[in-house]
């Protein structure tokens, strides 16, 4: 990256030197990227295994897929979709930081932009994912 330094923080008095990155958006987005990546990767192992049951019998596959339809597991699926969506959006932000000449300068704004997109997608997404669970638990089905 070029030698462009991020603008000096206005409240520099309160912070020790050398924390332009540490403890701010840049660091926490990196932490969240690692955690969401690892969680998704561990789920992927389980998911390949459960899908492999189509090779055993239709009954065994349908049985394991029924766990995904349970309202509690349904909540965890929203967590998974949220994790994957964050990882995808932040991955695009990382690519922008690496390849776009102004990416590093705007990394903070880029983070808040992807957080905004995440919320806009997750609100209707969670609604449609929870619809059936609500119908089952509160009796309209």
């Amino acid at each position, binding site marked *: 990256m070029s030698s462009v*330094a*991020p603008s*000096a923080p206005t409240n*520099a*008095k309160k912070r020790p*030197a*050398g924390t*332009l*990155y540490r403890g701010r958006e840049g660091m926490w987005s990196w932490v969240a990227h*690692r955690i969401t*990546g*690892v969680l*998704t*990767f561990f789920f*992927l*192992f389980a998911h*390949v*295994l459960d*899908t*492999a049951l*189509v*090779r055993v*019998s*239709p009954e065994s*596959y*349908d049985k394991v*897929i029924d766990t*995904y*339809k349970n309202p509690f597991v*349904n909540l965890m*699926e929203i967590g998974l*979709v949220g994790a*994957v*969506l964050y990882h*995808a959006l932040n*991955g*695009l932000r*990382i*690519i922008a930081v*690496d*390849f776009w000449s102004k990416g590093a300068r705007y990394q903070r704004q880029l983070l808040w932009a992807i957080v905004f997109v995440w919320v806009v997608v997750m609100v209707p*997404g969670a609604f*449609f*994912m929870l*619809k*059936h669970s609500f119908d089952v638990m509160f009796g309209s089905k």
Partner: protein
Amino acid sequence: MATSMHSPIPPVIEAPRSAPGRPRRGRTNTELYAWLFMRVSGIVLVVLVLGHLFIMNILDGGVQRINFAFVAGRWASPFWQVWDLLMLWLAMLHGTNGLRTIINDYTRRDGTRLALKGLLYTATTITIALGTLVIFTFDPKI
């Protein structure tokens, strides 16, 4: 490192990964290719995985409509077979390289690092092989 408390000059940050005096270990660019693979596979996976999640979890009743017959209907089409095969390979390799980075970052003893990576590569090989086998040998009339 220590700038004056009232100085407007930002602190000097050393360039990352600079190892003065240490010779380059090899002639290969493996880490560069791994870095590039994460970006290229990442862009493809954004489409494949978000598309997969949207179709499976949100569209048309979401996960409630998924069963053996649904899978059989999808894998009757080569398009979805290729989609799922590509997604399996790219996601597994992307995740494996990500976890490899994390293991390299946090393990302190050579033995621990070797053991964890051995476990990771074994699990990855088995999972990619199993998933590929399932897609290629799927039989809707089982």
